[in-house]
């Protein structure tokens, strides 16, 4: 079957280098002018891009577990995205230096007086956080690497053995990611508002990662297709990618609504605090903006059969979803750390830097192997996919 190599255009690489430079400069400027804001910004971008990578890895696992055939031809793209996880690991370890600027529970003086923080201290303390981060990232890196290796071996040797092994690894991965990403979301985002708790928060964060990860996979597939790769991409494939975004956008809306509605209805101060704290402009606006961008627009625009198979409609929705995710995280992180809704060139620059790095990683890893997993048992199903 079609062997295909992706060779990154030189200009594209230079472009990502330029973006990374912008990011480094913005980050450096921010660090000297407003360190707290910069740490918040750092957390946001790290979380943003690691969730895309985790979402992508989860996407591969789900394909194996559900024995989905249609997506086989495109599995190198989520694989390349998952290759970003080691980079994220380094960033998150660096984040430990900034713990004091972000997390109230790390302050000795509040710990001395606050009964609730004292109660949570056995879990929420910097050494244990560091241990958890190391464990989570080692597991994620180990499993994604193993999955990638198996897939590359399959390319050479073929046969069903690697296929079954991939399935087994996928099972282990979802097993681990279910627990670890939940705790990770609690650590990184929920504990910013140290007194607040919501049982659905971790699940919502996970769905968000999966939703936006799938959107980026779709975007990369469409961009590669535009540049003359992945010629087998047809409207049925597009429709299936859309289905992921559409379905996950609905689940996202459902989780967001469930969390908000139950807290609103129960009206217990310790729970409503999270929303009350954000119930003024501009955060109130962001609350609605996040719902519109992450749920309403994908829901309405991707529903008709026509738009759900058209790149012309999908690309804007994906771009809006990317903005929506930024807003969602901004809404969670900023009021708890920086308090004032500061947003400017620093944030944009840092985001561009991360986007550049993420793209560079993806480009490099796409180039390292066949763009199409040539001996994947479902490749034929995928190539001839039509419904």
């Amino acid at each position: 079957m079609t062997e295909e190599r992706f060779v990154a255009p030189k200009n594209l690489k230079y472009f990502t280098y330029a973006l990374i430079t912008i990011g480094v400069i913005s980050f450096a400027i921010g660090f000297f002018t407003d360190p707290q804001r910069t740490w918040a910004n750092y957390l946001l971008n790290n979380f943003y891009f690691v969730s895309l990578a985790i979402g992508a890895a989860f996407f591969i696992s789900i394909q194996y577990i559900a024995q989905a055939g249609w997506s086989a031809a495109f599995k190198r793209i989520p694989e390349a995205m998952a290759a970003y996880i080691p980079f994220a690991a380094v960033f998150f370890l660096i984040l430990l230096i900034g713990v004091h600027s972000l997390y109230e529970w790390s302050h000795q003086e509040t710990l001395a007086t606050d009964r609730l923080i004292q109660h949570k201290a056995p879990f929420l303390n910097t050494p244990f956080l560091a241990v958890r981060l190391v464990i989570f990232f080692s597991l994620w890196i180990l499993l994604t690497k193993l999955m990638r290796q198996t897939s590359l071996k399959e390319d050479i040797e073929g046969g069903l053995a690697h296929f079954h092994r991939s399935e087994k690894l996928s099972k282990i991965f979802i097993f681990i990611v279910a627990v670890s990403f939940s705790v990770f979301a609690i650590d990184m985002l929920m504990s910013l508002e140290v007194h607040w708790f919501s049982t659905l928060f971790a699940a919502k964060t996970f769905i968000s990662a999966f939703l936006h990860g799938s959107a980026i996979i779709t975007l990369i597939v469409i961009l590669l297709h535009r540049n003359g790769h992945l010629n087998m991409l047809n409207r049925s494939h597009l429709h299936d990618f859309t289905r992921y975004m559409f379905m996950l956008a609905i689940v996202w809306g459902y989780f967001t609504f469930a969390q908000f509605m139950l807290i609103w209805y129960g009206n217990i101060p310790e729970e409503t605090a999270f929303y009350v704290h954000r119930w003024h402009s501009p955060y109130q606006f962001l609350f609605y903006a996040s719902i519109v961008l992450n749920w309403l627009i994908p829901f309405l625009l991707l529903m008709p059969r026509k738009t759900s198979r058209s790149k012309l409609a999908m690309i804007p929705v994906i771009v809006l979803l990317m903005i929506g995710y930024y807003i969602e995280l901004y809404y969670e992180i900023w009021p708890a750390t920086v308090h004032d809704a500061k947003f400017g060139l620093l944030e944009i620059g840092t985001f561009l830097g991360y986007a550049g790095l993420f793209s560079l990683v993806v480009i490099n890893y796409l180039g390292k192997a066949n763009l199409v997993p040539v001996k994947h048992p479902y490749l034929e199903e995928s190539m001839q996919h039509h419904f």
Partner: protein
Amino acid sequence: MYKTSIRGKLIEGDKSLSQISHEILAPIDAKTPRWWYIAMTVSLAMFGWGLYCKYITITQGIGTWGVNNTIGWGWAIINFVWWIGIGHAGTAFSIFLLILRQKWRTAINRAAEAMTVVAVFCASLFPLLHMGRPWLFFFIFPYPNTRGPLWVNFNSPLFWDFVAISAYMLISASFWYFGMVPDFATIRDTTKSKVKKAVYGFFAFGWTGSSKEWLRFEGLSFVLGGIAAVLVVSVHSIVSTDFAVSVEPGWHTTIFPPYFVVGAIFSGFAMVLTLVTLMRKLYKMNDFITDSHVDAVCRILVFISLIMGTAYLTEIFMAWYSGSQYEMYTFFQNRITGEYAFQFWAMFVFNALMPQLFWFKSVRKRLWIVFIISILINVGMWYERFNIVITSLSKNYLPANWASYSPSIIEIGFFVGTLGMFAAGVLLFFRYIPMIAVSEIKSVAKFNNEIQPTQHHE
């Protein structure tokens, strides 16, 4: 394109289309087996006892139950939620697997849908009788009335429940029925008995099988499917708000809506598995319900079980993390340990731990283990509802109000009665309705012979 070499065959044996019809429809024309009469008698006896208990409840009142002031919701609500949960799988199967284009669903969806209708009916009896004066149940309809400006409380999840469940009942029953129309026509055209010809002919709506009819038929199933997919999620989310909108410790938690939906699908799938293993054994449907079908359901169950386990752990962790002494008490002294520890651990073991055995192919291959686990999952799901309904109510904020609960014989009889009713419904379904969707099975028959890519491609 469908890789049978990897995925396994959808239909075993090389069958022609007419063979498929004959084999699936055979039990309808065959003589009723003796076990059927025995099973039916037992079910009807259970049903009869249930009727007696309902009679006692209606004539003497809720006082005949074990509920008290503190624990106002007893077995009735546990069973209501349990049955509704089971009733979810039909639609979950048909719709979600239809949307996901899972071709193996064709062998199982009919049984699942039939089960839905019966289970939802069983479920609706409980809140009806729990009202105390069921003859006034129409007070729950929101309509202008002569009782003064007395409207239902639109803010009440109990009212949402009524709306969601009645809508769900209507849609799932029509979805099931319309799916059967082509099969009824097949029976009408093949049966030799005149009575059957007339009866099935009536229900077949004069189906001729023209392409126009098929077009409309497919359109209708997609529309109904789309509506039902939303309802599946809404029904159990709303059932969960019966609990979650309160401020009761252990009830008021944001994870409840999705956790209930997943739990419902879990119990429903388990019930489908119970039914199809029975169908396979009793009616020798091995060629249609193949090992790979059972395997697929097991895979779904292990995945859902994982979600359930994560949800249980999240709840326990959050109870501690919240630092709220009421939450901590409920979870650590009234669930994991304490008076109701058995029920908690029964739930945890049956729902989160035991289905993990399905990771192993050797377990998935042994039909009798699969059968036992599928039943135990539903036992576990029953205990889950017990855990939720009883433990939180029994010991909440005011220790002076604390109480215990055990069901009365009338409540037990009521539950046994619904089990009998469910079993009777399923038996009638086995006997009089094609238990596998013939027309849908035929539609996947063509995938049995793998098309070689060289004939098609390049």
